């Protein structure tokens, strides 16, 4: 069977499974549609959260970001940032919002800050961060299809939309939860199998996390070898190359951590478990399942980088001849992810850190995961599995984001603000329509990605960190914070973060409109725009606390609400 046929078979089987689950788990009430009836077991919810959380970027791009763009140690910001947020979530956010026991994140903000203005501001923040995030998933679906199934991008995107439409509109959170559990199994299997093979080949050690610290066949440590090879080529050492400065690394890590704890599509997953206690253990399980991928990724990063280096230069000074490059190399050149240019015309490929003499002119981050099975000469079914895994990662995250968006529209905007008199049946219908609209809207944006799609991570995490996270945290931990404080704080936090990102990256990321230029000397304290969410959060906290001191304290009923959500059982 050819590779394309195998891929169709594996991807087709995974899609059939998702549709089967969708038919089995239709939602019959708003409670089921928004929070899966609050009956999900904490371990199952942990698995669903892991799939919800790990996007196309985690699956396809992260190892490459670490191994190539951030040259090893610098990429640690993603590893610590995207896992450390779960500790904050488990201790400071999830248990109290679960106790509160309603459906959405803006709903809590609106009720806690006794204000529909606060509710609407929260809905806007949620939509901005979720929409920018979902565009990336839609692109991931289209790209995975076109690379592995040789369809065009539009056909791929359309197929993905049909699947999401089916289970998200029918089943809401209930359908999404069960498909996410299946998608987690597919994606984690697809990620770890090639990693285990590569680790075995390089170090003889089946566990990649141990393999990364082990020796190669020649007796030197893998990381030592990688450090030395990169130094020889003029790069920085793999294990010590800092991204920007220590302050920038710390700010970047902190922004991703608090952004994680403030992203609505992650928070609402904890509304689906039966108790406050279950919300805490569920966060722990979620991190266990996430850590399987996140501790494997740095091993994939280092091992795949070393594999590529050794393919290009098997012995120092002995370069790969252009004519003798392996088949996988040629295959990926056709996709544009790899590119060579024999600048000195010697028929050999010289890879170096110097852009004038480097002849491996294109080396896309995604290649580390996508070409991994071929580089390691693994069988076709493993390559097909990587395709199904990438699609599972993109679909599961897209569905979670779309639910966060549609529930904010049908529940917060419609039921809680504009049309409070609609019945539950009408609201369920409205939530299905909102979901259908969200899928179509995301599909449209996936087909016509706006200029700002490139800044997805910067916007989604920066905005969640600087707007929703402080409002949620202070809403739980302070009884004195007022609606005026929270609203102005959210606006100031978002405003500062957006202004900083826009002034360096262009207004709405349109090239040429950045008025300070994307140059490190212009960065505030050397902090890059992607890492600025933590500064926005500090601004938000300061404004909220100052304004709250100057305004009348919240009504007694709100102070009572805060008292109630802090303890798992209601007061007598």
């Amino acid at each position, binding site marked *: 069977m050819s590779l394309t046929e195998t891929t169709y078979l594996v991807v087709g089987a995974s899609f059939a499974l998702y549709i089967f689950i969708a038919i089995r788990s239709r939602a019959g009430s708003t409670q089921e549609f928004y929070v899966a009836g609050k009956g999900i077991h904490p371990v199952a919810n942990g698995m669903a959260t892991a799939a919800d959380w790990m996007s196309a970027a985690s699956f396809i791009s992260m190892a490459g970001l670490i191994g190539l763009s951030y040259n090893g140690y610098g990429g640690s910001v993603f590893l610590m940032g995207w896992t450390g947020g779960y500790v904050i979530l488990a201790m400071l956010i999830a248990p109290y919002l679960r106790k509160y026991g309603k459906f959405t994140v803006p709903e809590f903000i609106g009720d806690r800050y006794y204000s529909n203005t606060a509710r609407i501001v929260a809905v806007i923040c949620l939509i901005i961060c979720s929409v920018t995030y979902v565009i990336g998933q839609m692109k991931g679906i289209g790209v995975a299809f076109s690379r592995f199934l040789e369809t065009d991008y539009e056909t791929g995107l359309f197929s993905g939309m049909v699947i999401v439409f089916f289970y998200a509109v029918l089943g809401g959170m209930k359908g999404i939860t069960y498909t996410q559990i299946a998608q987690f199994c597919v994606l984690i299997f697809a990620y770890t199998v090639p990693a285990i093979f590569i680790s075995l080949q390089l170090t003889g050690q089946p566990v990649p996390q141990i393999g990364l610290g082990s020796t190669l066949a020649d007796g030197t*440590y893998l990381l030592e070898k990688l450090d030395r090879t990169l130094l020889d080529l003029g790069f920085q050492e793999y294990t010590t190359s800092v991204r920007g400065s220590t302050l920038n690394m710390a700010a970047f890590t902190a922004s991703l951590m608090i952004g994680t704890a403030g992203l609505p599509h992650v928070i609402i997953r904890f509304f689906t478990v039966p108790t406050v*206690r279950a919300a805490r253990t569920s966060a722990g399980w979620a991190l266990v399942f996430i850590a399987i991928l996140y501790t494997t990724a740095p091993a994939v990063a280092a091992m795949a980088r070393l594999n590529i280096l050794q393919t290009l230069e098997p012995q120092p000074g002995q370069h790969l001849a252009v004519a003798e490059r392996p088949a996988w190399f040629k295959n990926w050149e056709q996709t544009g992810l790899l590119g060579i240019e024999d600048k000195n015309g010697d028929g050999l490929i010289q890879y170096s850190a110097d852009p004038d003499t480097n002849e491996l002119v294109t080396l896309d981050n995604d290649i580390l995961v996508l070409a991994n099975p071929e580089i390691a000469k693994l069988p076709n079914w493993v390559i097909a599995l990587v395709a199904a895994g990438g699609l599972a990662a993109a679909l599961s995250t897209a569905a979670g984001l779309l639910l966060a968006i549609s529930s904010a529209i049908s529940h917060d905007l419609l039921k809680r603000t504009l049309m409070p008199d609609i019945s539950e049946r009408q609201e369920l219908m409205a939530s299905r329509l909102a979901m259908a609209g969200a899928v179509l809207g995301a599909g449209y944006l996936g087909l016509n990605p706006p200029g700002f799609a490139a800044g997805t991570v910067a916007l989604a995490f920066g905005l969640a960190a600087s707007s929703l996270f402080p409002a949620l945290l202070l809403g739980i931990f302070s009884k004195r914070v007022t609606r005026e404080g929270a609203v102005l704080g959210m606006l100031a936090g978002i405003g500062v973060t957006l202004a900083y990102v826009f002034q360096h990256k262009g207004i709405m990321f349109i090239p040429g409109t950045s008025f300070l230029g994307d140059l490190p000397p212009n960065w505030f304290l050397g902090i890059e725009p992607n890492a600025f969410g933590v500064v926005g959060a500090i601004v938000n906290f300061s404004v909220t606390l100052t304004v709250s001191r100057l305004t009348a304290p919240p009504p007694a009923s709100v102070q009572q609400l805060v008292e109630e959500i802090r303890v798992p059982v209601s007061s007598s």
Partner: protein
Amino acid sequence: MMDTNDVTARQVYWRENRRWMLILGTIWFIVSLGCGVLWVEPLNQLQVGGYKLGFWFAQQGAIYTFIVLIFVYARVMARLEKRLGFEEPEA
């Protein structure tokens, strides 16, 4: 209305909760932003197998510690709830 016992128990619960958050939050900071970023250079002088220690914290150790922290927190809070009679009925 809440009776006085309930009010006191709730205060104890919240005080103990904050104490654990502070302890576990400090460890959270030390293993990630501390060992993984701020003190990474001195730690890199130590080698564990093929890993420099600072690099290990940043790419492996911090994540393992996070998992332990969440389960420890879940456990101490469940115990505290049992002691104070704040256990939720199973749904």
